[in-house]
């Protein structure tokens, strides 16, 4: 909740911004995945069982996921940007600060159903206790849990859920600065195929003067970033991320994502010169007065195909 410091967001209320801890967790997840990738298929994995026993006394996992402050700050900035965007669109909301709980998305994905249902009940009780009726989510995984999955496991669950991108598109805020730049969009599988969030981010970017470049696999046909298996098969996840990053780099050198997991994976696989940024960084520059442009953004579209064409390497 360090990200919310100094923003004067009230506690609770009927409408709350719910982060689900996803953006905040990414620096730790990335470090952990990198550590695991080093051990994958090595003889050390034979001793992981001992590690699991030791972990009960000394938290070894914590040492494996030590993160750098600048990275934490970068992810916190994304949440601050989202807050500014919602305020600029006239949305009143609160936040549950330290009371906010993880949605349980990973438990659900891995089929740990009983523990997941317990977590869903805890989250539902928390919302009920605080009189929350509307939830604004910031990432696709929490959106999917809150809007579609909780309903299948909880009897009394009546919360209206919208992602901030849907809400902004609905509010149609005035654009304060035309960005005049080219961006390649990477759609999240969860947003595109589970929650039908495809047009809203594009509408917001187009209105901000962004020329959108869709890779061949985009929208409902988007290609996964590999993120969902990074904790179990980090090497394979990296292969998929590399493949996707190649597809994106073929369309331009500035890529925007709308999911923290996608962003982390594509960044890890990143090709030299490829800029990968969360969509909120561009939106805040376009819709919030006084916000600065994302640094080092590409004004001219320069895909690798174009670069090869200029050098006469391809027709």
């Amino acid at each position, binding site marked *: 909740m360090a990200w919310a410091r100094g923003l004067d967001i009230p506690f609770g209320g009927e409408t709350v911004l719910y982060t689900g801890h996803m953006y905040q967790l990414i620096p730790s997840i990335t470090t952990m995945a990198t550590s695991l990738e080093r051990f994958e298929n090595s003889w050390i994995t034979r001793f992981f069982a001992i590690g699991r026993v030791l972990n009960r006394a000394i938290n070894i996992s914590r040492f494996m996921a030590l993160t750098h402050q600048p990275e934490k700050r970068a992810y916190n900035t994304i949440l601050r940007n989202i807050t500014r965007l919602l305020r600029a669109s006239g949305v009143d909301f609160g936040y549950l600060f330290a009371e906010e709980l993880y949605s349980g998305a990973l438990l*659900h*994905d*891995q*089929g*740990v*159903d*009983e*523990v997941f249902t317990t977590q869903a009940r805890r989250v539902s009780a928390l919302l009920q206790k605080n009189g929350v009726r509307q939830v604004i989510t910031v990432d696709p995984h929490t959106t999917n849990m809150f809007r579609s999955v909780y309903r299948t496991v909880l009897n009394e669950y009546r919360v209206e859920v919208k992602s901030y991108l849907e809400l902004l598109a609905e509010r149609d805020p005035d654009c304060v600065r035309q960005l005049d730049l080219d961006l390649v969009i990477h759609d999240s*599988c969860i947003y595109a*195929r*589970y929650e039908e969030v495809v047009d809203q981010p594009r509408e917001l970017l187009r209105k901000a003067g962004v020329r959108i470049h869709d890779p061949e696999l985009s929208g*409902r*046909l988007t*290609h*996964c970033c*590999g993120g*969902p*298996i990074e904790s*179990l*098969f980090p090497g*394979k996840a990296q292969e*998929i991320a590399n*493949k996707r990053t190649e597809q994106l780099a073929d369309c331009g050198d500035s890529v925007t994502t709308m999911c923290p997991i996608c962003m982390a994976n594509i960044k890890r696989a990143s090709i030299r010169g490829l800029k990968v940024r969360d969509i909120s960084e561009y939106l805040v520059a376009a819709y919030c007065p006084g916000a600065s442009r994302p640094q080092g953004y590409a004004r001219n579209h320069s895909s690798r195909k174009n670069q090869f064409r200029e050098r006469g390497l391809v027709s």
Partner: protein
Amino acid sequence: MMKVNPDFLEATKLADRFNASACINCGSCTALCPMGINLLPRRLFRYVLMGLERKVLENIPSIYSCLLCKMCEDNCPAEVPIVENIRVLRTYVNKKWYGLERS
């Protein structure tokens, strides 16, 4: 020789959410899978429908390496709920193999 386990069949049926009987074995899912695992999901579902528990358990890494990205399900001509089926199998393996939850 393959051994059919009727209890396994019952367990997946009981899950009430495993539904692969509509699968026409067209291979769209296999062709579209970003993981490129040719086992997933059609052959795996055949093993389940036939009650071949051992064959299913031999393929635990494949079951857990599914990305749940829904590329296959979204393009399945028979509208098989592939992602939920994979999740049901994970739940089964979690209980039966890893003892993660109560059976």
